[in-house]
């Protein structure tokens, strides 16, 4: 497989940020009240991820190691601000639906994690593809969760009525508890698939570094564990 296509496959399937790595849980739960919102949030994150990966990769030989975390934060926050203004100007309905969670893309583990673990070490084009793959993987995850919640909770998919009018929507699925419930179901489903594959003796790629494993790993994956290198403290 071409190494550029491999990056996309890696982000979409092998290391899918939502289902495999379990990164970026806050937006995953918060904005997936409908499939459209899920796509919007996913694409906004993808845009930031691609651009920040690109710029960080370009600057990787210039940024001194000791200040790399603040530098990454500035880069990411700048792109988030740009995306925020673009959304406000061109898709105001999505902007108001996502609200607070657009500026909060800054603290999304995925972006910092990719900057630290991939963009800081690899050439520009590969990093762009990596950002694209990861971003699309995130988008797919959010859309899937949004779709499940929208169909059960509202009887619609992408705003179109798909269940018959006699169906009484289970409103709780588009409220806060439904987010936890749907994610629990999807993770359990994934565990089931993995367990079965493990029983068959298929080689399992153990991927760790998700928030679900505990915050220590999440921090080490790039959110903050390395934010302050020990040499800097004293």
């Amino acid at each position, binding site marked *: 497989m071409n190494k550029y296509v491999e990056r996309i496959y890696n982000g979409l399937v092998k290391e899918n940020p939502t289902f495999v790595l*379990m990164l970026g*849980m*806050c*937006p995953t*739960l*918060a904005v997936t009240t409908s499939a459209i919102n899920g796509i919007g949030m996913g694409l906004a994150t993808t845009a930031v991820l691609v651009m920040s990966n690109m710029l960080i990769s370009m600057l990787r030989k210039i940024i001194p190691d000791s200040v790399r*975390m*603040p530098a990454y*934060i*500035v880069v990411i*926050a*700048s792109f*988030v*601000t740009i995306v*925020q*203004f673009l959304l406000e100007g061109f898709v105001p309905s999505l902007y108001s639906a996502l609200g*607070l969670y657009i*500026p*909060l893309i*800054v*603290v999304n*583990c995925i972006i910092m994690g990719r900057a630290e673990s991939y963009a800081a070490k690899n050439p520009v084009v590969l990093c762009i593809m990596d950002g694209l793959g990861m971003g699309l993987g995130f988008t797919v995850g959010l859309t899937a969760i949004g779709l499940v919640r929208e169909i059960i909770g509202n009887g619609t998919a992408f705003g179109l009525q798909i269940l018959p009018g006699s169906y009484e929507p289970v409103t*709780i699925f588009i*409220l*806060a*508890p*439904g*987010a*936890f*419930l749907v*994610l*629990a*179901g999807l*993770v*359990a*489903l994934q*565990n*089931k698939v993995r*367990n079965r594959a493990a029983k068959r003796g298929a080689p399992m790629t153990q991927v760790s570094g998700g*928030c*679900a*494993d*505990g*915050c*220590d790993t*999440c*921090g080490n994956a790039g*959110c*903050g*564990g390395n*934010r*302050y290198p020990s040499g800097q*403290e004293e």
Partner: protein
Amino acid sequence: MKELLMIAVGSALVNNVVLSQFLGICPFLGVSKRVETAAGMGGAVIFVITIASFFTSVIYKFILVPTSFEYLQTIVFILVIAALVQFVEMFLKKSMQSLYNALGVYLPLITTNCAVLGVALTNVQKSYNILEGVINGFAVAVGFTISIVLMAGIREKTEHNDVSESFKGTPIVLITASLMAIAFFGFSGLI
């Protein structure tokens, strides 16, 4: 006074930061295995969010607004918070050893907690003044502590329960969170 109380109750219970705003899910799932560590995390979060909401409110009001650089708020806030966490850690290490021992390990994790930035941005969005902002920040953090300590208590009790294979680990925690979120709906009558 009444408005301040309304803000506090609203942020701590009715719009609970974890269970209805989905901020700070990472530590909520990761550090809720033991009540003791959950309480430590909660204490550190209260400490940092209260200070951070004070500083971000002040900076917004006295630096960003007069120079009409409001659009830089995201960048400025995240840098202020990152610097502040670092500074608080150094300060506690030097001068308040006992508090550092209790909260120290949790402090670096807090920068990853999107609740801190979330509170700072909410304060601006709802145009709270500095006192309201600090009260809001404190209340949000108290709400976080309540939910993470409750969650840890439930997880300690249910640790040895016979959960089906696929639901072990994260899924059962998420289902517990879902039930807690339903329970927290009960507070919505308060305001």
